[in-house]
């Protein structure tokens, strides 16, 4: 069996786990709960095996040291690793808090992400490492960056849920903020998904694909009508979320998730993500850049955006400890932090030019 079969098992397991988690929440039967967790763990193990197998394949082809053969050098691989980190974080939360409520949200996202990565035709071929990436720092820098991204993703999900369940007044700023944020997030990812599916056949290298085709199926379509429809559709979508946001609130509250738990989880995720991001993303990145490029800091777009992200989370921590911010205000900061994180991870590679052009390829 090769790595892609194990990835397939993992995606199926995550989607089955979702069904089990929903059944668990509906019937509150502890046996069902254990089954849900078991399926997730099976998916996670399969995912891990797939990752290790791909590492081995890379090592055999790549003619390099085992530490340098970590399969984290293009968009396909990094997304798969990102999903792995998210599931890991979820399992830790389930274990630490003895709470299965989030499973029903996390597992479908993970399953669909893996399935999407598989069918989108993203370049799965193994490419040998270019000289700049041939360093043992690759492992530490990239894995730690992704672990922190995953922690920030969790904080985004929990702070978003917090905003959803604590806002009722449709005219209040936090309500409008979360509806727009959620609407834009989902729309952008949907639009990117459509791009992948529409142009699937024509693509050879994902980087050039993304540079020349991003949003070309929707917002940037050559036909003005399609583009207009996309914008109007997005606006309508955001309006629908705004109008029926209370339904989401009912869903989340019915999953017996409390405000305090969400606030605490948001903080915990940031408190874990921030030091890892600082050490692995910024410091190890700087040390490596110093060795490879002769500059520990070049104000390259990726570096600059990492710094902006770092500032936002530093602000989150200081606002919480010095000013005692809690609740909605701090949740908004966490959402903004993750928007910056996503831009650091994807936006920089897709939209800006610079030294860190690896992630997109």
């Amino acid at each position: 069996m090769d790595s892609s079969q194990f990835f397939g098992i993992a995606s199926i397991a995550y989607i089955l786990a979702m069904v089990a988690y929903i059944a668990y929440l509906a019937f509150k039967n502890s046996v069902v709960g254990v089954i849900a967790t078991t399926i997730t763990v099976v998916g996670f193990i399969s995912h891990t095996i797939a990752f290790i197998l791909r590492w081995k394949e890379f090592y055999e082809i790549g003619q390099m040291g085992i530490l340098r053969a970590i399969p984290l050098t293009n968009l396909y691989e990094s997304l798969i690793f990102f999903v792995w980190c998210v599931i890991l974080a979820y399992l830790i939360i389930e274990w630490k808090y003895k709470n299965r409520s989030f499973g029903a949200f996390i597992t479908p996202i993970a399953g669909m992400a893996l399935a999407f990565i598989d069918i989108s035709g993203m370049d799965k071929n193994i490419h040998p490492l270019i000289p700049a990436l041939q360093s043992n720092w690759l492992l530490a820098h990239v894995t730690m960056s992704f672990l922190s991204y995953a922690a920030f993703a969790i904080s985004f999900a929990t702070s978003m849920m917090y905003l959803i369940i604590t806002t009722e007044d449709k005219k209040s700023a936090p309500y409008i903020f979360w509806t727009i944020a959620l609407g834009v997030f989902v729309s952008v990812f949907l639009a990117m998904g459509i791009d992948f599916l529409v142009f699937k056949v024509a693509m050879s290298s994902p980087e050039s694909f993304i540079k020349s085709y991003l949003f070309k199926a929707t917002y940037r379509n050559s036909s003005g009508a399609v583009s207009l429809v996309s914008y109007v559709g997005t606006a309508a979508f955001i309006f629908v979320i705004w109008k029926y946001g209370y339904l989401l609130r009912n869903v989340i509250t019915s999953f017996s998730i409390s405000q305090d738990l969400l606030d605490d989880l948001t903080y915990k995720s940031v408190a874990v993500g921030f030091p890892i991001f600082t050490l692995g993303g910024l410091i190890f990145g700087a040390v490596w850049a110093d060795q490879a490029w002769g500059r520990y800091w070049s104000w390259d777009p990726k570096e600059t955006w990492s710094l902006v992200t770092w500032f936002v989370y530093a602000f989150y921590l200081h606002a919480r400890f010095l000013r005692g911010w809690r609740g909605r205000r701090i949740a908004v900061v966490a959402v903004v932090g993750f928007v910056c994180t996503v831009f650091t991870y994807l936006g920089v590679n897709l939209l800006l030019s610079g030294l860190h052009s690896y992630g997109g390829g």
Partner: protein
Amino acid sequence: MSGDEKNKGIVERIWDLFSSIKLAVVVFTIISATSIVGTVIEQQAEPERNIKLLAKFVGVDFAPTAFRILDTLGFTDMFRSWWFMALLFIFTANLVICSFERLPKIWKLVKEPVKPVTAERLNALSIKREIILKEKVDKAAEHAGAVLKRNGFRAGERKEDNGVQLYAEKGRYSRLGVYITHLSILLILGGAVIGMVFGFNGSLNLPEGMSSVVAYKSSGMQIPLGFEVRCDNFNVSFYDNTDTPKSYKSWLTILESGKEVKGKVIDVNNPLQYKGITFYQASYGYAPTRNSIFKFSVTSNAGTRGEVNVKFGEPFTIPGTAVTGKVIDFSPAIGMDESGKLYTYAEMMNNPAAFVEFSENGKMKYRQWILVRLPQTWKVADGTVEFKHLWGAQYTGLQVRRDPGVWLVYLGCMVMAMGLYTAFFMGHSRIWIWVRDDKGGAKVTIAASVNKNKISFEHKVDKIAKEIGSKK
């Protein structure tokens, strides 16, 4: 007198401004916002590139004006502009003064060891456990003390009216974690300033066989190195049958007054350092001359072998025969199109090929393309001609740097890692155990407080309670 007071007022006002968190937020926001602009506008780029970019936002007509405005404001090289430096300076001053303002309060907490508390204080604490033991108070207190010691707490003891109070703490200094982190930012910025003031960043393009005693700043200014650096050889290697580069290697030699003192093969993640100056493999280029040398290893069919170094058009002999060859054409990257026609597909030496004409007794016998990367092409009718390298046709692009502040930056990074670990993963935990007489037995009240990671600390308190409750 009054002027003095007024003066003091201004100093105080500035101090107040810099110690405010509002200023921190404003500076944070400005630095972030301008940095984002700086990532969109290409830094230190050709004006045309940014004008083209701006045309997308403001239209073709207004783009040159927009560019001029941004250029005047320094946005085209903003990370070195005076105002960005000023922002970083304000940020630093703010950080220092804010930390300084809060330090006394924290310092008091850090200097003050744990003390026994009153019954009311004890009852007000959120983490509390109670156990009844059959032992006498003294025995029970001794046992509790031993349990605390086993769990890493060294307890103080106070005799009270009807019992004993034990008090202990751990991680008092962890409260300084935030300050260690702030200090580390200062160290890093300090290192960066030292690097900017006393160091330099330059580049040097060195053709194979050439040497230099200077490097060049981006402005074109010469920086004397104080010694000579020579490039003996440069080579790009590729993964099999692809144009994906595997390594860029430069063979460098350092010379002091003409004498070789150090040599090293550098590649991208492996620079050469000499007297505080570091040479990094940054780029390379192709610039052939008439003096570039074709290096062949030639073997006749009879097995006689010889090394050949010839220039373009210069004849060489296959050893032990009367056959001579000479290079009459060269392609740095030869490829073949569908119809079988040869063409040059790149401007770098991705796939170098020499077209060699072989003659015997002045008569042309045959011609053949010989490729460095394709051993099948080395075999000719009268022997084997291995094309090893075209030497002197490439230059290595070196990044040359001296940064006397880099050790401080690294130190700052280490301090930051320590500070963050202390700030996020270590807490100041305090625990009080009150042992009172209870009808001949002992009533043990455990109360505790922690400033971080309460859940895991509560597990620890549970463990301690269980150990005290169970007999040895």
